[in-house]
């Protein structure tokens, strides 16, 4: 029985497109993802676990988590503040400001690292002053935090700006007209409305913060056990031909990526459900 609707491709076209598309995804996404874990477990689970117990790997995990945690509050405050100003008010130069927020997406991570070397490095603008006061930013953790901030700060703002724009100002205005103070309005009305979008932005920026390589690599100085994040540690182990170690560390990051994808999908699903609920047109009221 042949039942091709007017808006459907012939069956052979559909199957061809499906095979090409899924084949492409298999070779470029599926295979690498599987390979990470297979390579990490190539010599069995005990060797894998042993590789993870290595003190340098553990300190790298600690530093990666630490930097991500340090960056998070800055990104949240910035994201909410920027989105509040941009989504709820009109002012001159707004589109310029949005472009400026997008900028880190267009800057190569290597360049992002370099600009902070030029600023805080030994020969940098503030280098001599920092040396005088015995402060170390470049080739130290503070520099890595700053570089990570640069790379990750747009994520939350980018997520919140369209969300808050679509929600409009009505609810906040209603709160104010009912006598709420600024903080009451923010905590009781604004924040509950944006919580899923905020969480989504946090997930994305966190994944990037933990996985960033280029920018952090430039400013870290690769000091083992001190300024090595997990991605940097992967590079070192790999270059030392310690494949098991490298892939063991990489598998942790791959797991993190999978957790990110799952969390992201759940939050997306929640947000979709919420907008669907809001857009449901209910049957006219019975009188």
């Amino acid at each position, binding site marked *: 029985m042949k039942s091709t609707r007017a808006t459907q491709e012939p069956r052979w076209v559909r199957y061809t497109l499906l095979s090409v598309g899924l084949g492409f995804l298999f070779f470029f996404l599926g295979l690498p993802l599987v390979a990470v874990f297979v390579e990490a477990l190539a010599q069995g689970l005990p060797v894998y676990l042993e590789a993870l117990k290595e003190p340098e790997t553990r300190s790298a995990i600690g530093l990666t988590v630490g930097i991500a945690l340090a960056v998070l509050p800055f990104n949240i405050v910035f994201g909410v503040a920027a989105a509040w100003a941009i989504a709820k008010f009109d002012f001159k130069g707004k589109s310029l400001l949005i472009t400026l927020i997008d900028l880190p997406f267009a800057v190569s991570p290597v360049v992002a690292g370099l600009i902070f070397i030029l600023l805080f490095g030994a020969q940098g603008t503030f280098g001599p002053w920092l040396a005088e006061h015995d402060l170390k930013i470049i080739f130290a953790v503070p520099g890595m935090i700053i570089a990570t901030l640069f790379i990750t700060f747009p994520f939350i703002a980018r997520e919140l700006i369209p969300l808050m724009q679509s929600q409009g100002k009505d609810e906040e205005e209603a*709160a104010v007209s*009912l*006598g*709420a103070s600024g903080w009451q309005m923010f905590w*009781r009305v604004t924040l509950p409305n944006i919580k899923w979008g905020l969480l989504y932005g946090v997930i994305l920026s966190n994944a990037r913060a933990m996985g960033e390589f280029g920018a952090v690599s430039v400013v870290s100085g690769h000091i083992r056990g001190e300024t090595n994040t997990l991605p940097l540690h992967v590079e070192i182990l790999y270059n030392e031909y310690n494949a098991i170690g490298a892939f063991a560390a990489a598998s942790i990051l791959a797991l993190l990526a999978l957790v990110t994808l799952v969390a992201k999908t759940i939050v997306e699903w929640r947000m979709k459900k919420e907008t669907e609920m809001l857009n449901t047109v*209910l*049957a006219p*009221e019975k009188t």
Partner: protein
Amino acid sequence: MSIEIRNISKRFGNFVALDNINLDIPTGELVALLGPSGCGKTTLLRIIAGMESADQGEILFSGAEATHLHARDRNVGFVFQHYALFRHMTVFENVAFGLRVKPRKERPSDAEIKRRVMELLGLVQLDWLADRYPSQLSGGQRQRIALARALAVEPKVLLLDEPFGALDTKVRKELRRWLRRLHDEMHISSVFVTHDQEEALEVADRVVVMNHGKIEQIGSPDEVYSAPASPFVYQFLGNVNVFHSRVQGGYAEVERHEVSEKTTAFVRPHDIDIALQPLEDGLQATVQHVHPIGPLVRIELQHNSEIVEVELSRERHEALQLVVGQAVWFRPRQMRVFGADQLPRSTPEKQAFLF
């Protein structure tokens, strides 16, 4: 609380939203701001509420200067066009919001809040929905919750932005009557914005007709309908036939050319008589269409190249028995003539006309 609006102007960029508006709203009145979209009516409402600030002019509440008073401190209840219910709060919490955010020493106890919220929900007849979320309500229910929420803080003035705009016809009619009753019971001043002339005429004590940021006319529903102050008001409130005429000695002379000033005569479709025999001062025309619409029958006549719309009662139509193609005579019973300057040339007393 009375509201006085003095010389209020507001621009958005090059767009003049309000142009020197003056308006008094006495205590206890229910006033409609009526006009097409973009006429500035919502902007005026938002300025009264303190949501928007005027470029110039002032607002007085009960005679006291309120122009720069913050929205929070105006004691105004505002009902938003799309209700603006807090989507993540239950109906109960929505209505309780205004009480819960009061400074601690003014805040009622939880028991008192519960009592007042349930009382308000009873007033809007939705107490059985207290635990629902806004997304689970119909449009009419949301509207009533929004109203209950605005009333919870006991405002002196109630402002409503297109309160029935998003509802279907049946619910809208019922809510209109209900708003009228509520207004009378609460003894407050209310202002609502609408683009629906029927709504304004039916509900309001006074209608303020606006266009292009200016007030065209202020008057009782009957005044604005039967004695429109400008061609715009004539055309905005109900159907009208427009005749190009010339004025001579206080009479409109349609289709006579030996005259002084170019004017326009406006005649409501229900103010036209049709006869089967020649009428004195009447014009001849051909019946083009006959549409029975409920209690009325709408007749389209063709006079020369122009279409004239006439509304007859069913009884009158049955007496005439018009058929398409028939030749008839028609004559306005009542008309109003405006000059090119948009000012009236005829008065209700002086309504004679010649064709």
